[in-house]
């Protein structure tokens, strides 16, 4: 049994080993079938498979035989076992019968009475038993024999099985070797056939290749020959063409050239003749002209010498004039410098004056209040009268100093407000109204408040937008064009500021330079500029500034309003700004003379720096100070004098009185002390020593 198992287990690898080459072969076959000799490969595959099968069969034959033998053996064993069992059963049956006979005989023997019979029967019993035992022994022996036989058989089987195993192994080895050999052969064959095929293909290809190459070579040669031939032909024809052409050309050329040369020669001859005659004529003319020219030259030379002398004289004169003028200039410069210094001094003085003024005013004010207070005290406490404060309206007036300041600042403010884009507040408008309500209430046709509002008001209310835009534009124009009025240092300072602010500052300085202080002036300027557009077209006016100004002024009076409302699409030409400015200053100066305001003194527009100094109203100062001084009236002063004398007297009385009181007080005190001493003495009369002492005291 174990033998077959071993066989089975060793059978497995062999089948695996068999299977592997099959796969290989199949793959080989498949590859082969792809190429052109699939038929032979299929055949070889078949033969190989057959071989393999045969060999496997050969190997497995042993196994099958062993199986068959084993099954046969088992069947035999089964049969033998069955026979054996039968036999044993028969044996048991017969022995049982015999036993029963013996037992039966025992009953017979028990009955027997004769010893001899008994012995006989016992003997027979013994014999029977012995026979049974013999039978059993026989059976046992037989069985033992069988065991021995089967042992032998087993050993023999083992041997045969071992032989079979060896055989199987041998055959397997053989198979493997054979198959390997055959596969190798097959492989070699495959390779050979492949090689052969390849060789055939190669040779065929090579032959074809060579053939093609040969053909090509032939063709090339032919082509080359053809080409050469053709080149020669072309060369030849070219040569021919060239010679024929050349001959033709030569012939043609000579004829033409000859004719041409003749013609040109003739032409030249004629021209030469003509030229000669002309030259002769010219020569004659030239001699005449030459004589004329020499005459002229002499004359001109005289003129030149004369002029030279004149020129030298003139130069000398001019030099002298120049010298004089430079000296003048130097003098003027010196004067100007002095003036500048003076101006600075004046400014300082004005400032100091202002400060002193203010200080004095404060002091006086304090004094006045003090005086008033004392007056009030006197009235209320001494006289017992009710005190009424005198009118103090003049106190609020602080003089004309402030007004000037205000005016100037308002000019700047207006500029600033106008420059501010849209944030025009109602107060802004109100300011305009306020300003317009003032001095410059130029009458116009019509009545009522609406007509009363001046042009400036128009700027503020009606054409607010257009007006502000206009003014702004004019300001920008001024900034650009009237930059010479601004000090150069200011530019440096202003450069980091924003555009609007820069513009504003510039405007400020320009206004101060031009002497424009109030917003009316600003608007006047604006108006002037807008109106200037019209007359600008007339060139004759530009010469006479004053005349034109008059025209402008009159024009302005009439149509100023309209021009404000008209769209200010194009303003005056920036190049004319300076001229206009000049005209304006002249006009402004004259105008301001005409419309002298209440508090304003004569303003010198050409010297704006003097404004602060000279612009003071001295006439009111005296009144002001006087009013201050006269705050206490004369009558009251008399009362005060009387009161003082009365009070002095009262004071004297009071001092006497106080002196008396003091005396009485001291006396009273002395009196009280004396009383005290007296009392002490009265109490200590008992001791004389003491009395003595006490007695001495009053003496003192």
């Amino acid at each position: 049994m174990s033998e077959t198992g071993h066989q089975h287990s060793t059978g497995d690898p062999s089948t695996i080993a068999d299977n592997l080459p099959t796969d290989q072969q199949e793959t080989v076959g498949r590859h082969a079938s792809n190429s052109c000799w699939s038929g032979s490969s299929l055949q070889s595959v078949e033969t190989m498979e057959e071989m393999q099968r045969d060999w496997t069969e050969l190997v497995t034959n042993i196994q099958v035989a062993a199986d068959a033998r084993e099954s046969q053996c088992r069947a035999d064993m089964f049969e033998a076992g069955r026979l054996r069992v039968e036999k044993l059963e028969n044996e048991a049956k017969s022995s049982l019968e015999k036993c029963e006979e013996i037992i039966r005989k025992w009953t017979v023997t028990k009955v027997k009475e004769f010893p001899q019979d008994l012995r006989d029967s016992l003997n027979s019993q013994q014999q029977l038993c012995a026979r049974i035992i013999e039978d059993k022994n026989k059976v046992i022996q037989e069985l033992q024999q069988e065991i021995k036989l089967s042992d032998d058989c087993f050993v023999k089987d083992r041997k045969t099985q071992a032989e079979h195993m060896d055989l199987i192994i041998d055959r397997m080895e053989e198979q493997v070797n054979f198959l390997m050999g055959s596969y190798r052969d097959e492989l070699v064959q495959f390779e050979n056939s492949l090689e052969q095929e390849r060789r055939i293909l190669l040779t065929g290809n090579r032959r074809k290749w060579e053939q093609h190459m040969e053909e090509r070579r032939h063709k090339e040669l032919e082509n080359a020959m053809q080409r050469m031939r053709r080149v020669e032909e072309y060369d030849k024809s070219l040569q021919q063409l060239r010679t024929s052409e050349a001959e033709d050309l030569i012939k043609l050329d000579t004829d033409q050239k000859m004719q041409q040369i003749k013609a040109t020669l003739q032409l030249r001859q004629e021209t030469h003749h003509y030229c000669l005659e002309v030259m002769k004529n010219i020569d004659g003319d030239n001699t005449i002209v030459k004589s004329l020219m020499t005459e002229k030259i002499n004359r001109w030379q005289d003129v030149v010498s004369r002029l030279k002398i004149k020129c030298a004289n003139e130069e000398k004169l001019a030099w002298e004039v120049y010298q004089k003028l430079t000296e003048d200039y130097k003098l003027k410069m010196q004067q100007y410098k002095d003036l500048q210094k003076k101006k600075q001094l004046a400014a300082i003085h004005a400032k100091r004056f202002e400060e002193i003024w203010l200080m004095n005013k404060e002091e006086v004010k304090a004094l006045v209040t003090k005086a008033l207070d004392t007056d009030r005290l006197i009235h209320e406490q001494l006289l017992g009268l009710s005190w009424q404060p005198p009118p103090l309206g003049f106190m609020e007036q602080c003089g004309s100093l402030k007004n000037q300041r205000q005016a100037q600042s308002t000019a700047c403010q207006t500029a600033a407000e106008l420059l501010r884009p849209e944030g025009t507040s109602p107060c802004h408008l109100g300011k305009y109204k306020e300003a317009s309500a003032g001095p410059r209430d130029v009458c116009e046709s019509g009545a009522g408040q609406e007509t009363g509002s001046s042009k400036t008001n128009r700027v503020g209310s009606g054409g607010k937008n257009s007006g502000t835009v206009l003014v702004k534009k004019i300001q920008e124009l001024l900034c650009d064009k009237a930059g010479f009025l601004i000090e150069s240092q200011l530019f440096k300072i202003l450069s980091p500021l924003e555009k609007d602010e820069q513009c504003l500052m510039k405007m400020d300085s320009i206004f101060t330079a031009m002497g424009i202080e109030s917003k009316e002036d600003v608007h006047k300027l604006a108006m002037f500029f807008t109106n200037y557009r019209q007359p600008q077209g007339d060139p004759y006016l530009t010469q006479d500034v004053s005349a034109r100004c008059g025209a402008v002024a009159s024009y302005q009076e009439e149509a100023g309003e309209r021009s404000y409302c008209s769209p200010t699409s194009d303003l005056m030409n920036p190049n004319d700004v300076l001229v206009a400015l000049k005209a304006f200053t002249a006009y402004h100066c004259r105008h301001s003379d005409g419309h002298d305001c209440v508090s304003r003194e004569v303003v010198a527009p050409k010297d704006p720096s003097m404004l602060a100094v000279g612009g003071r109203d001295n006439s009111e100062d005296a009144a002001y100070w006087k009013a201050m001084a006269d705050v206490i009236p004369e009558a009251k002063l008399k009362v005060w004098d009387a009161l003082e004398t009365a009070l002095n007297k009262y004071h004297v009385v009071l001092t006497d009185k106080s002196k008396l009181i003091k005396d009485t007080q001291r006396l009273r005190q002395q009196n009280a002390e004396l009383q005290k001493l007296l009392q002490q003495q009265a109490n200590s009369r008992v001791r004389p020593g003491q009395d003595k002492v006490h007695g001495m005291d009053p003496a003192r």
Partner: protein
Amino acid sequence: MTATISKAPWGGTYPPVAKLNLAADPRKMRRIIAEDPEWSLAVVPHLSNICLQHIVRNFEERPILDKLLPSHKDYVLERLSTSLPLRVTSNLISDEGYWKRCCQKRWGLRDVSAYGHSWKRMFHERHLENIIELFIPDVTDPRLVLDAVPLCRDYVTRLNISQLLPPIKEPQAQEEDDGRDSASDLSVQGPSVDHFDFGILLDKLSRLEELHVVYRVKGCGMNFEWNLFEFTYRDCELLARALKSCTTLRVLRIHQSKVDDEKCRLLVNNLLDHPSLRELNLSHNLVGDRGARAIGKLLTRSRLETLTVYDNNIQGPGARAIAHALAKNTSLLSLDLRLNRLGDEGGQAIAQALLKNCTLERLYLGANEMSEPTATVLSQVLVQNQMLRSISLACNRLGSDGGKVLEEGVSHNSMLLECDLRLTEVGQESEYCIRRVIQNNKNRERKTQDDSVM
């Protein structure tokens, strides 16, 4: 072990590291030694080489491998001792070269193709097999096996146990095998187990797929005793329980172990509804009709693909039970009932089952005392069933009539590729005809294969 290390090939030219005191020897301090004709610069070892040698030498204490550069790794692996303990190497080294050296040192030249071309798997499987095969119940410490489990668990997919030792009963028993040691003063009480208990092992091997077991002793020679070849009922119980716990098992082979009806039933009862079992092999046993009935039950309650009951004692009734199951089965591909005693009764039953079954591809019914009646039914089957690829009827007395009937059946079949009719007395003519039909079938098959490949 240390001796082998110091004698290793690298020790020849290089002095040991411990003695490398260069300053002490003025000769070593010199770059060139002109007076020595045998001197050459190559003798001076690289520091990296010395380090690697050190690593190799102290690998057991400090296994450094994965941190090394690839070239250095190769150097170390080439020189590592094969006698290093498994606990160091098994989970660290995956290099096949090292395991090849280990295997060849321990077992000589072997065929690695049987182990999936993995030397490491081969080493671990054979290591575990050796431990189990030399396991003596009540003498060997079970921890010896359990210690090996975590090392081998990831690499063992097949266990081919070729012997299982019985417990020692009397002093003379120890001389039976060379592998046993002299632990003889054991008490003579009944042993706790009769053989190695697979229950402690199988549920821990998470990748085990194949188990081949033989309950017998190899090479006992003249010490033969019947009790050396005993597969007791207790063993069977333990084995069955262990098999049930091993859910990854695909192939089970218990052969030459005297598995009789009772044990077969016990095994089958525990294998019912096994999640992965595909192949069962009970060849060379004593399975009878009742056991065959149990196997029939297993066929209906599992997804077996291969069933081998070669060389058993199955007779007609048992074959009928298997046939009954086969008629309903849809997974079995191969059935081997060779060398049983089915007789015509069993053979007819199996053949009739094949009329209904349409999955079986290989059927082996050799040496089964069948005769003509079976052949007639089989010829019907061959006409009708187009799944059968291989059939073996060798060593059955079919007779020439049976051969003719079969010839007719085969002539209507186009799928059969193998038909074994040796020693069946069918007559040469019918055998030849059948062979030709099969040859045609094969050719057709090959052609369709070629077509499908093209």
